[in-house]
């Protein structure tokens, strides 16, 4: 799988490139800002572009804007945005531009090589990735006592969070040490309780779940 990296800090983009190579990815190039990254993507059409959210010149949300630009010019290229902050808002903005092949991760997740390569692969294959910290903020948000979410069991809530992170049924089953069948049962219950239209597609349900969590 071919990957492009955009980050303005040298130690981070070089470190990330090394990590990715170590994990068996082909790094097609690194870029120090959004424009460079767009050029790089134009030139080498990678499977995934990893981009730091905060880059020159304003050091605010350039990465997010670069992600949108790449999305428009190269819909097939997956985008993984790295951030040092847990901003559910940015994650939702990113997801609402299409959940296929997008991800929002905290920067320090790159330290776990297995998790990193799993996330990059998922994005590269058109799936979506949402950082557990963002999801737990959405799920853990305090709500009124009569909210449907309060009727979920702890296990169901765990499944809901893993769904929001973008994981497949199989991954959820592995993570919780249960059978896929059990996971499917949980998911059916969750969708029923929250009155969400059932969607068997692992990818598409992420937005439904996240939107639901954000709006309640």
């Amino acid at each position, binding site marked *: 799988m071919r990957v492009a990296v955009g980050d303005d800090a040298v*130690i981070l983009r070089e470190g*990330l490139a090394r990590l990715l190579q*170590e994990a068996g990815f082909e790094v097609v190039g690194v870029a120090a800002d959004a424009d460079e990254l767009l050029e790089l993507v134009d030139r080498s059409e990678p499977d995934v572009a990893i981009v730091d959210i905060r880059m020159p010149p304003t050091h*605010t949300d350039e990465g997010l804007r670069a992600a949108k630009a790449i999305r428009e010019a190269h819909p097939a290229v997956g985008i993984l945005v790295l951030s*040092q902050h847990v901003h559910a808002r940015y994650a939702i903005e990113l997801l609402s531009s299409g959940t296929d092949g997008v991800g929002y991760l905290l920067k320090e997740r790159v*330290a776990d090589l297995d998790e990193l390569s799993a996330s990059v692969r998922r994005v590269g294959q058109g799936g979506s990735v949402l950082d557990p910290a963002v999801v737990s903020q959405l799920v853990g948000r305090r709500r009124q006592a009569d909210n449907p979410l309060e009727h979920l069991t702890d296990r169901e809530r765990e499944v809901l969070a893993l769904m929001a992170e973008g994981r497949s049924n199989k991954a959820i089953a592995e993570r919780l040490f249960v059978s896929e069948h059990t996971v499917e049962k949980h998911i059916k219950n969750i969708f029923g309780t929250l009155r969400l239209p059932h969607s068997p597609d692992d990818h598409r349900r992420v937005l439904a779940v996240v939107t639901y969590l954000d709006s309640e």
Partner: protein
Amino acid sequence: MRAKLFLLVLAAIAAGAGATWLAANANAGRPTEPGPYLTSLVGAALIASGLASWRARPDSRLGLVMVATGFLWFAGLMSEATDGVLYTLGVAVEYAFVAGFIYIILTFPSGRLRGTLDRWLMLAAIAALGLQVAAMLFGSGSGLRCSGDCGHNLIQVFGDNGFALTLLNLQRLIAAALTLTALVLLVIRWLRASRPERREVTWVLLAGTATLIALTVTVVDDLIGGPLNSAPAKIWFATLALVPIAIVATFVRRRLARGSVAGLVVQLGAQNEPADLRAALSRALGDPSLELAYWFPAEARYVTGDGRPVDVPGADSNRRSTFVERDGTPIAMLLHDPALEYNEGLVQSVCAAAGLALENERLQAELRARLVELNASRGRLVEATDAERRRIERNLHDGTQQRLVSIAMSLGLLESKLAPEESGAAPIVREARTALTLALEELRELTQGIHPTLLVERGLPVAIEELCRRAGLPAHLKVDLDTRLPDQVETAAYYFASEAVTNAVKHSHGSEIRVEVSYDGHMLTVNIADDGIGGATVGPGSGLRGLADRVEALGGQFTVSSPPGRGTRLVAQIPCA
């Protein structure tokens, strides 16, 4: 001075007596003869009021010019004499007084010519006088429009009465043009004058205008052959007496104006409202444009009653300043119309009468100025704090956070490279990575608390929305704001909301929070209410006190309503247009 004055008066009496005698015994028949009464009236009025004016303002040229004009007037009467020398001299200076009159009318009350046009008018007047002398070179006594028993013209060189008449007609044309121009100039000046200026000049201007009109009629009548005979000239001479009378009347009016100071003293004693001080002084001085400024010793400058700084007007300004001092220390500055300079006595009496009231006002103004300064410095402090917070957040992000992430990466890399036989090291590396993740999490919380990046990047509604999302109680948000506001307003509102929400979660024991943000184009209102136990106070050292400072530094208002058992409502209102 006294002796000089005495001599001048003696000379005036002598000249007046001579001129009056000549006027009474004139036997030359000319169209412009004043007669004995007008002769003495005009001359005496000019010299007397000139002396009065000179005494009142010795630095002004006006009094001198008036006295000189009076003497010239008398000298002109020598043209009635039969003696050759007197006659020649008299005819030569016969109309010289007209130049003096024009000077007086144009320059009253300052005695200074005001512009190029003024100077050209004076030059034209002097040229017209020169033509009189030139005509004398050509015409005999009778050729100079003198019929009857004229004196002998001693400086006649050529015998050409026709040319002499032409020169005299030219002189009259110039005189007519000159007076008409001066008339227009005076009317324009009057229209442009301020109220105090008008009060100074109106009487003199009316008399001067009458004189100029009468002069124009006389000259034109003379030019076309004098069908009205000497009637216009008689009227003109009568109006001439009006100008000095108007000048004396103006002096009397200035003195009488000082009577208003007595009224002012009574008024200042009776009133308690300091805001009326300006109105009272303005009435006493007759200057509606009057402004007051007070000495602010801390910054060694003058400030308005509300404490805003005021500059002392420069020499080229169209305002004048009068400084009020007590025992050598400045108290106040009166900014007034330049025309008040002519009645310095009035201004000084008013300042003396209002000294105590001004000193009181000054103390209040100083207090207000200190408040203005205090507010500004509070604003600067908040601004400096925000800038510092931004800088710290940026440094943490670009420095510490990145280094920690890079260490985490290295650990990840190390973990992947560990050979299976070194399996004992793996848990240690994992432990280090976990600790690092926690450290990064703490750092993240810290930097967000220091400076909320989302606020800067996405604005107040989004930042408060995120705040509510993270709140430890269900939070209902209602936002009515679709525009970005100035940084310091957004920041103050955000910190206010953040602290208020934290307080509600920690102390209210309530079950939910309502957050409302609204903006009506002038005022941003943030309203945070919980349904808890109430009883919150804003004491010194509490987080709420700091927030109140922040809001108040922006000229905003902060209110707490927290009746026991009925929840707490915190409202911040920050003005911003």
